[in-house]
């Protein structure tokens, strides 16, 4: 097994497109984080009395009034508007200060991780490439002749990709520490953030690794069944949409006796466990997420078990497939 892992590393380190994807995804994650910060940090311009007065004058609402009546009415309206806008601005500022805490350490860790939907999809792509390319280049037979044991070959690929996934998540977490520091150094406003619940945060990171393994197992299974790596991401997205449609069918509506069923679906299960753990960890980023309340609280162990069960199912199908398939490439 160690030889296969070493061989995989020798192969991957020379694979330029693979590194481009990983580096690109890291950059996109940081850009998404900064984009969200910029949007949340935006300060609305203060009330402009002159502009508002001009708008009132052009509206023609003072026609038929005497000059004194119009002036009094105009001054009153401007004052009312000023009071209302100042009240709104104060509320917005409170909300802005609350929102900006997401970008300060330690909240930034989970905010950065939460901006990382693309890396998850990219890892699906990487996983489908890792196996699909063996069919595309015809190297599957060369690899299997060298590796002999097909189960070990697949296990080595999965382990390599899991290490890469864990590395990517770790990189994102490190960036979650560094980017707020850079923001602060550059003079950006980053108010102090409330702490995270450490055990729940650690568990969330571990579950994220499990989720990535599950998604990659899905990609590998599809690549092995279809003997191509090009369709895994597309099929995952199609599957996700179908699952979403099915989960929203009236028979699964809250209050119905089948309401808990969608929580056992793959993508819905992932979404549920991630949001639950993010909430438990005290992530401010997740508190702004809108998601339908769970019909039944299955409890964290069951929620994690659902994701684990799907992962094991995909892995066992992939394992069965590679061990029984005829290699005709």
């Amino acid at each position, binding site marked *: 097994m160690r*030889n296969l892992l070493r061989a995989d590393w*020798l192969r991957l380190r020379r694979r330029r*497109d693979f590194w481009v994807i990983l580096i690109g995804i890291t950059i996109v994650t940081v850009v998404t984080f900064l984009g969200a910060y910029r949007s949340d940090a935006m300060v609305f311009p203060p009330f402009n009395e002159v502009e508002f007065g001009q708008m009132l004058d052009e509206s023609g609402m003072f026609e038929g009034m005497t000059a004194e009546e119009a002036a009094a009415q105009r001054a009153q309206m401007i004052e009312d508007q000023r009071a209302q806008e100042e009240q709104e601005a104060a509320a917005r500022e409170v909300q802005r200060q609350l929102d900006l805490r997401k970008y300060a350490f330690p909240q930034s860790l989970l905010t950065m991780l939460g901006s990382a939907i693309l890396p998850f999809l990219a890892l699906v792509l990487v996983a489908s490439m890792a196996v699909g390319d063996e069919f595309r280049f015809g190297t599957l037979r060369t690899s299997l*002749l*060298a*590796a*002999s044991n097909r189960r070990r070959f697949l296990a080595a690929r999965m382990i390599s990709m899991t290490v890469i996934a864990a590395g990517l998540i770790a990189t994102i977490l490190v960036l979650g520490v560094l980017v707020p520091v850079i923001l602060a150094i550059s003079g950006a406003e980053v108010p102090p953030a409330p702490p995270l619940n450490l055990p729940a945060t650690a568990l969330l990171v571990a579950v994220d690794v499990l989720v990535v393994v599950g998604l990659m197992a899905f990609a590998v299974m599809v690549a092995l069944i279809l003997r191509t790596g090009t369709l895994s991401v597309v099929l995952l997205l199609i599957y996700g949409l179908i699952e979403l449609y099915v989960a929203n069918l009236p028979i699964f509506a809250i209050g119905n006796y089948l309401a808990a069923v969608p929580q056992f679906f793959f993508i819905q299960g992932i979404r549920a466990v991630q949001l639950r753990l993010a909430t438990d960890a005290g992530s401010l980023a997740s508190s702004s997420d809108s998601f339908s309340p769970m019909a039944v609280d299955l409890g964290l162990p069951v929620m994690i078990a659902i994701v684990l069960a799907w992962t094991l199912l995909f892995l066992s199908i992939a394992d069965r497939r590679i061990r029984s398939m005829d290699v005709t490439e």
Partner: protein
Amino acid sequence: METNVAGSIAVGPAAITGPVIETRGLRKRFDEAVAVGGIDLAVPAGGVYGFLGPNGAGKTTTIRLLLGLLRPTAGSCRLFGELVEPGAPVLSRVGALIERPAFYPYLSAIDNLRVFGTARGITAIVLGERAREVLEQVGLAAVARRKVGGFSTGMLQRLALGLVLLDRPALVILDEPTNGLDPNGVVDVRRLIAGMAAGGATVFLSTHVLPEVEQLCDRVAILRDGVVVAEGAPRSLLREGERLFIRFDTAEQAAAAMAILGSAATESPPGPNGGAAILLEVPAAEASRVNRRLAEAAIHPAELTIQRQSLEAVFRELTIESDERPVPS
């Protein structure tokens, strides 16, 4: 490369008793098409065993079955007495080149050898030196660092041979190893094959290049439509194609000789010297006995010559359907 003065390439110790390759009723069907129709083979240890057959005879399918890349529909194959299944441990003792060799196009020649060599369990220290030696051996030292994606068919073929040589396997299975090579390359490869056999490896050579068989093989099996139609030493196959041409001065003598020699004798055009002639389907060693029998009956041939069919003619006779054979002039 450990090449001794006789040009042999040393292989690892192998105490082999019984056939190195043994198949029993080996069959492979793809949907409705039977690719291999029940092959029984017993390849002894040592030397070069030729596996002949026209295109589409089932050679490559048989080789993929031997290497555990395909699952047999029926029957079994054993290597070194161990049953071959996908991922069977015995496959690690086999070096193989399958037609149209496949490598990672984004890696250089030496990196491809390192990746597949590492997967086979060769240590990095050994591999570093060995990969360079092997590339020298197959004539690719000058392009060792060039990406394989730009290699010609012949260069890929050489690299695949390099991979076979890398860990000195006890059994080497080669499928059309001289495909795509220039004449110098063909000579080099034949020298390498002879070297491997001289070093103690058993070489199973699938080819349809008959001079290669005549030069290298100790035994051959001829395959037609997925079935072995002849098996033995090339010399014995050639003996099967031997016959005696006997010319007489008169047609009466020829008729009398045919009556004595029985059904093995057939009429033949007498050639430019006239008279009457017969062909007798017997090995050349029988010539003196035939002559003695005719002399005892007071029939004296004007001419008695041995006609030998080339291996090519034997091959054509065995592999072309009777209704496809050209009519002799």
